[in-house]
Structures are given as structure tokens and as C-alpha cells.
């Protein structure tokens, strides 16, 4: 009997695009991202039979590893994922190569160029190259320059550069970096990755909005009273203190992931489902976004830092007690802010964005709260009728919930809220791919739809410039509020909303 764990009738029906012959070069191959995300994503693509036989992955880092070392390191790191597909891993590992490279050394890059030519011949990759810069952001500019100097990105049709976040530290550095990168390669060759856009649920926002007639007519200031965008993590800083101390929640999450969710939620419908049409609309909405109070930004932003917490079974350290963190650190691990979008669709509708570490749940969600009915005809079983809400769950328990009022059973005419549910698990029953699976494939297919364009990145930084300037020039005006680990951030964050008679949704 067929297994009903997966839908047997679904097998083979999905027609995925096949990646063309390709050489993927990963700079920073000895780093975490390579073994945590990139190689697992590529192996998943291999298991899905989307990797062509003419393929190569060349790991590059300063460590003097050989091809064999690289294969073994990856095998060890990915042991859990490989255990069920050992035979496939053996075949996949034939694609793995390694070249010791320091991008700052021009002779290294020249040597790499020669090696890539050899690999191109052996693997018949037709000269197609995708360079993945998984290195310190400080080296993005110089890395691109080195690739340009070695002639590795001269052909705009056959070469691409994927750049990880953060792209810059603020508006001016992002602008400067864009200028450098664009002097080395055409914008069409540059893929600025934001893995949130690779999530099925984020892409589904576009489909829900633009493939249904019922949402778009009410997706505006006439019907929506506020929008909340939350991305919370239960983990602390872990072993990323070095990076996190200089970035904080604003640069690590708010400027990129949350702002991309804001853009996808608020953008106008594109004329066509084409990369530039979509990116134009995202850029436009970001350019129209501004902090709720640009002149006195401390009125529309709350910063927090997790303090110790937990329970008698598990004690949790405060941020300042974490390894590698300055004892007097003022880096925010939590940030909440209020944004307006100055356009016809959203004028006057507050968008509340919050993100933080050591919060009670790991989740991402977008909550659209609709306006109250003009007249309350019915009494509610609770104090007031709850406003309608559409909750788009990005992760976990991916799906959507629509909350609305119905008649409470009984002889009276009282209303009560109920929920209509859509769950990926219940509807499709199969896990969706990790964001990196989708994005790596798209980059190699030269499809930039889900990557951020230079003007989007700059607009996102510009939006938060008043906050960044304040944090740097007068940090006391935007103080760090402590919050106990595993609580929903500092109480001041609740006050940000309660001023508007709104509350954060407790997921």
C-alpha cells in the first residue's frame, strides 16, 4: 500500500525550474552560514533533482584546506541531514571543491581565477558563475573590487554576486557600498539576499493579496486601522556577540527582515509579475515610509535589552553577562517602532514593528486590524466586539487566521469572536523549503524578484536614519529598557501602543 505520509498523487507534479550549468563560489566557506544554511540548501536542491550534472561548488576561505578537507568538514557538520541520504551525499560531494583564498590578496584571486577555469572545463559549467559573499560586511566592497580586477564578473550574463545582509550600517554607508558594488558589476548582477523573502509565507502575502478579489479592496486606510509586524526569537545572542554588539536589533532585524515584510504588506499591486515591476513597488512604498515622529523619534521607538530570567530549572543570563558582551553594553536586543506610510493607500494607518531576542515565543507574524463597525448593534459576550483581524503567520505554524464576530449561540443576540483558519500543515501537509533553498536557486537562475535592489536597501536605511543618528549622537534620548528574559519586551513598548489605544497582540 502506498505511504500516505506524503501525497502520492503530488509526487512529480511540481515543475520546478532547472538551474542552468553553474559554478557557485562561496567566500567564507569555513564560516557558520556555509554549513548551517548554504550547503544544506544546495544538498536539498540536489535531492529535489534541480541541480544539473554540470555543476560545481567552490568553497573559498583563508584556511588552507584541500578539496577533500572541505568535503569531510561539510560531511561532519551536516551529519544529521546526511544520515538518511548517504548515497546521495556521496554523489553530491563530487561537486565540492575548495580553494584557499584571501580576497584582499590579488595573487590569491588570480590563482582562484585559474582554478575556476579548470573546474569550468572539468564540470562543463559553461562559464556561468555565482559568487556568494558570505564574509564580513567590511569586505563586501573590497571583495567585489577584487573579483572585478580579476575579470571574474566582466560578463553580466554569466556572472552574479550574492551579498548577505547587512548591506551597510546606515544610509550613507549603504549608499557608498552600492556605489562601489555598482562600479564593479551591473545592478542586474547583484543579488542582495534577505532570507525572509525566501520564505513561502512571505511570498504568500503577494499571492493572497493579488490572486484574490476579496482582500485588495479592503487593504487600505478605509478599512484597516493598524498593522503590527512581529519577529521574535527565544534565543539570546549565543556565539554571535562579536557581530551583535556592533549591530543590535535595529540593524540585525528591523532594517531588513521586518522592513521587507512591511514592503510586501503595503506595496501597490505590480503591473506584471516581473522582477523589476515588483521591486519598483517595494521601493516606492519604502520611499513613502517615515517614522511616526521624525523630529522627536524617541516618541515612536522603544529600545530594550534582555536581563536575566528563566526559572529554577533553567537560569538565563542577561545580555550583559553573555560571553563577548561589554558589561556596560547599550546594544538593543529589542526594538519596537511606529511607522507611517505617506501615500494614498496608507495615510494615517500606523504600522508597528517589533523584534527582539529572548522573547517567550519564536514567531513571525503580520496582524492587520480592521476598523471598528460604525454602530454597535449587538452586545458582545466580552466587553466590546473585537475588531476583525487578519493574522498572517510567517513562522512557525505557517498560515493565516481571520477573526470575525458571529452570533453567540443562545436566545439573545450577543456577538462573540471566532477564527477562520488556514494552515500550511493542514492544507498541504508537507514542509516548505528553507528560504535559502529558494533564494540560492533563484540567484543561479538569474531571477532577482526576491532580492532587494539598491534603492530598496537605501530607502530602508533612510527610514531609520533619525533613530540611528539619535542612538549615536544622543543615546540618552533613546534609552535601553531592561526586560526580563522570556517576557514580551519592556513595558515601555506596550505604552508605545497604548497611547493609541492599541495593544500588542499576544500570540
Amino acid at each position, binding site marked *: 500500500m*502506498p505511504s*500516505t*505520509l506524503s501525497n*502520492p*498523487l503530488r*509526487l512529480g507534479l511540481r515543475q520546478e525550474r532547472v538551474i542552468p550549468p553553474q559554478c557557485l563560489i562561496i567566500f567564507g566557506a569555513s564560516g557558520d552560514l556555509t554549513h548551517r544554511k548554504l550547503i544544506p540548501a544546495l544538498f536539498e536542491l540536489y535531492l529535489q533533482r534541480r541541480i544539473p550534472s554540470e555543476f560545481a561548488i567552490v568553497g573559498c576561505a583563508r584556511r588552507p584546506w584541500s578539496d577533500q578537507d572541505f568535503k569531510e568538514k561539510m560531511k561532519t557538520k551536516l551529519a544529521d541531514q546526511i544520515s538518511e541520504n548517504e548515497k546521495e551525499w556521496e554523489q553530491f560531494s563530487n561537486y565540492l571543491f575548495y580553494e584557499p583564498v584571501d580576497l584582499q590578496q590579488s595573487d590569491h584571486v588570480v590563482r582562484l581565477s585559474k582554478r575556476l577555469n579548470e573546474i569550468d572545463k572539468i564540470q562543463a559549467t559553461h562559464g556561468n558563475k555565482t559568487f556568494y559573499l558570505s564574509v564580513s560586511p567590511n569586505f563586501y566592497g573590497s571583495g567585489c573590487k577584487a573579483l572585478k580586477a580579476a575579470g571574474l564578473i566582466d560578463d553580466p550574463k554569466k556572472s552574479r554576486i550574492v551579498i548577505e545582509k547587512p548591506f551597510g550600517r546606515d544610509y550613507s554607508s549603504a549608499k557608498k557600498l552600492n556605489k562601489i558594488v555598482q562600479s564593479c558589476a551591473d545592478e542586474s548582477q547583484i543579488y542582495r539576499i534577505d532570507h525572509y523573502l525566501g520564505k513561502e509565507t512571505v511570498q504568500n502575502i503577494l499571492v493572497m493579496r493579488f490572486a484574490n478579489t476579496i482582500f485588495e479592496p479592503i487593504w487600505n486606510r478605509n478599512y484597516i486601522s493598524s498593522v503590527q509586524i512581529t519577529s521574535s526569537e527565544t534565543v539570546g545572542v549565543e556565539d554571535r556577540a562579536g557581530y551583535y554588539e556592533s549591530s543590535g536589533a535595529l540593524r540585525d532585524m528591523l532594517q531588513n527582515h521586518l522592513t521587507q515584510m512591511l514592503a510586501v504588506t503595503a506595496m501597490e499591486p505590480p503591473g506584471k509579475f516581473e522582477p523589476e515591476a515588483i521591486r519598483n513597488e517595494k521601493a516606492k512604498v519604502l520611499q513613502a515610509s517615515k517614522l511616526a515622529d521624525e523630529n522627536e523619534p524617541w516618541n515612536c521607538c522603544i529600545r530594550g535589552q534582555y536581563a536575566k530570567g528563566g526559572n529554577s530549572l533553567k537560569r538565563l543570563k542577561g545580555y550583559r553577562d553573555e560571553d563577548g558582551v561589554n558589561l556596560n553594553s547599550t546594544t538593543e536586543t529589542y526594538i519596537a517602532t511606529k511607522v507611517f506610510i505617506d501615500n494614498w493607500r496608507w495615510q494615517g494607518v500606523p504600522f508597528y514593528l517589533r523584534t527582539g531576542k529572548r522573547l517567550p515565543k519564536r514567531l513571525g507574524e503580520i496582524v492587520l486590524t480592521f476598523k471598528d463597525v460604525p454602530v454597535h448593534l449587538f452586545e458582545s459576550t466580552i466587553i466590546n466586539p473585537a475588531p476583525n483581524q487578519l493574522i498572517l503567520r510567517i513562522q512557525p505554524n505557517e498560515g493565516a487566521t481571520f477573526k470575525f464576530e458571529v452570533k453567540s449561540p443562545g436566545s439573545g443576540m450577543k456577538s462573540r469572536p471566532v477564527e477562520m483558519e488556514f494552515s500550511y500543515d493542514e492544507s*498541504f*501537509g508537507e514542509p516548505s523549503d528553507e528560504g535559502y533553498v529558494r533564494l540560492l536557486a533563484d540567484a543561479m537562475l538569474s531571477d532577482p524578484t526576491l532580492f532587494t535592489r539598491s534603492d530598496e536597501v537605501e530607502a530602508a536605511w533612510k527610514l531609520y536614519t533619525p533613530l540611528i543618528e539619535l542612538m549615536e549622537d544622543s543615546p540618552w534620548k533613546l534609552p535601553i529598557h531592561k526586560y526580563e528574559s522570556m517576557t514580551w519586551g519592556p513595558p515601555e513598548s506596550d505604552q508605545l501602543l497604548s497611547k493609541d489605544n492599541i495593544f500588542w497582540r499576544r500570540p
Partner: protein
Amino acid sequence: MKPQLTLQTPLELPHQEITNYLNQLWISEDEDSSGANTFTLMVWQPAWLEQCLVQSGLISGPITGTLSPEIIKIAKNLIIDKGLSHTTSIYSEELLTLLKENLSNNDFEDFRGQFFESSISTLNPRRLITLAPTLNKESEIKTFVSAYCPLSENTITQPICGDLVVIRGDSNSIKKKGLKIIDDLSIKDLPSWLWWNGNLDESQEIFNYFTDQGIRLIIDTANGSPKRCLKILYQSIKLNKAINDLNWVRLKSWRESLAMIFDPPSRRPVLDHISDIDVDIAEGNFLQALLLISWISDKLKWEFSKIDKHGELIKIEFKRNNGEKISTCINPVPLGNPSIHSGQVIGLRLISKISEVRKNNTCVILGCESVECMRLEAGGMADMQLIEQVVPNAFSSSESDVSNLLGSSRGNTSPLFENAIKVAVQIFNGFNK
């Protein structure tokens, strides 16, 4: 899609000069205009119906090779006027025979091969070769050559150009000379496709010539006898040659809709208890229904037991590996206004018996219209848990289906289709046992 026109009026050239002419065409000082580096598409384009209608004066020329709504309308009216059964296909031999009685034998302008849909041109075929057989049985080979550069919406992109060749003549001269010309025109390093845009029972020698060359095939098994079509399909997969079938492509929404019903994990146990499947088709060729049943049985790992014909009904029996029997039935339904594609699936009913209590069992009904759903619902199906869905048979043009195939093919036969063919052949062979 608008038809794509050539850059220049096709030039009539003696066939001996074509190769040389084409070679010269792409030799240029500018390296970028050396022609697309994609594929060659050959099209067998008899357009017998259109030729007959033009020759009979029922439509005005020129002959284009495109099955226009006007042609379909006139052909359907003729079927009624000539007293043929309403279910007669517009491609049927009966209709053509009647039309051939009143041919004028005049010369009409013939633009076959000079028009092709932009959905195909945007794929930038390097060379398009059209074989245009004529009704006139004493028509010598004529060859025409032209270049084309599809206009891209992306103005930055340099136009990617290709060439097209039309080989026109009666079937006999195409067989004797046309195939030799094609031989000379093949571009060795590029993949070649043949779209057989005609009945698979005719001009078999010409068809076999292409299959012997290992060219990737696009056929339509709605247009040919099931025996011949299955033979072609089976030979292709046996010899590991890429084959695509527009009749299978048109099943896509049925396969997708059925799979979608079982996406929610809570419904999957239903699949383990299927006892009956009924497939309604428009009267005619039953091959599409056979492929649909074959696909389901392959995915659910059923073993074929036997096939019987009861009048028009075809009954096929399978066995699950626990020994349980599954009965399936292909049921041709007479329709007033059938699709131009013979024997298209119009409804599917699947019954899963999980218990003796009827209301605990499940009935899945897919119909191309709600009326068909209601028809399949008859007989107490509503007593069971009923899952119903309308799957509209909204067909795209063959050109558009061909373009999708060319754009998405990996150069081999789809594994799903290949497995369905194997089962379908096994079932069909059961007729002879």
C-alpha cells in the same frame, strides 16, 4: 498571442541553394548576429481541414496553418449540415472525405510556416522548418527561406535572430526530396524538435524518418488511433527518446486537481481504500482517459488485472498489494458540442470504501462543468462524504502548449508520463489476451 511575422518576405530558392544561403545569412562582421544558439523546431503542418475549406470556397485564403475560430465554427456547422454525428471530430476522415468531393484545385496563397505565434518566437528557435504537404497530389517541392528577429519587450537585449524554412509539396515529394533537405539543414550541435501537428495515422514513413533520427517529439495522441499512438509512445520510451504529448499536457488540470484534493493529510487515508473510479469522456479516442487511469494506478502502486469492453464502456480492473480489487471504467458520453480534441476527459468519480456504513465512505467528483458533477453525483453518491470540484477544460492553443513544452522541457520524457505510458501499454495489451 499575436502571430510573429518574418523580417523579410520568404524567398523562394531551389532546395540545393538553401544551405549555402543560410550559411551566408549569418556570416556577418558583427559577431552578435550569428543567430540564436537554441534549438531547431520542425513542424509537420498538413492543415488538411483548412486546405479543404479554402479549396471548397468555404473560407477565403490564404492558408496559414493556424486553426482559427472561424475554421472551427465552419467545420462544426458542416458536420451538422452534412448529417454527420454531432460527436464527429473536426479532424475526422469522414469530414475530410466529404469536403474533398468539391475541391476547386485552384492555387491559393499558402503562408504556412511564415506565421508562428509569438509564444514560440520568444523562445528564439534557431531554425524553424515547416513541412507543408499540399492537397494537390502532383505538387513539386518548393522551398522558401527567411530570417526573423523577434522583438523583445526588453529593449536593452540585443535581438536574437533565427531563420525559417518552408518545404512545400505533395506528401510523396516531401518524402522523396523534402527529408533529404531536412537532413542538410540540421544543425548538429543544437537539439531538434519535431511537432507533428497532424494525425498520427497518416504519412507514417515521414514520421518514422524523424523518430529514427532521435529527434525530440511533440505529438497529440487525441489525433490518431489508440493502437498507433501507444505504439509510438512505447517505442519512444523503450529507445529512450524524448516524447511529449499534448493530450497528456491537457490532462494537467485533472492531475493537479485530483492531487490537490489529497494534499490535506487528513484525506490521505482515503487513497488506501479506493474501490471504484469512473472516467467520463467525450465520445471518441479513449487514450486520454487511459493515461489518466494509468497515472493514478502507477502513483498508488496498483497492479493491472484485466480489461473488458462492454459496448462503448471500457472496464479495467486493478489489484492493490493487499489483494483488494479496484474497478475502473471509461465511459464515453455523447456531447452536443464536443471539444476539438477527441475523447477529452469531462468527469472523474472516485469512490473510497473505508467501511460498510455508506456515510463513512468518500466520493470524490471532478467535473468539467457543474452539470457533469451533478450527473456523476447521481445514484446516491451524496450519501457519502462528498468532495466535488469543477475542473474547467479551458484549453490553450496547441501553439501555446508547444511553447510551454519547449520552454520547460529538460530534453527527456517526463518521468510521470513515462510511467503512465508503461501502464497504459500494459492495459491496452490486455485487450488481446
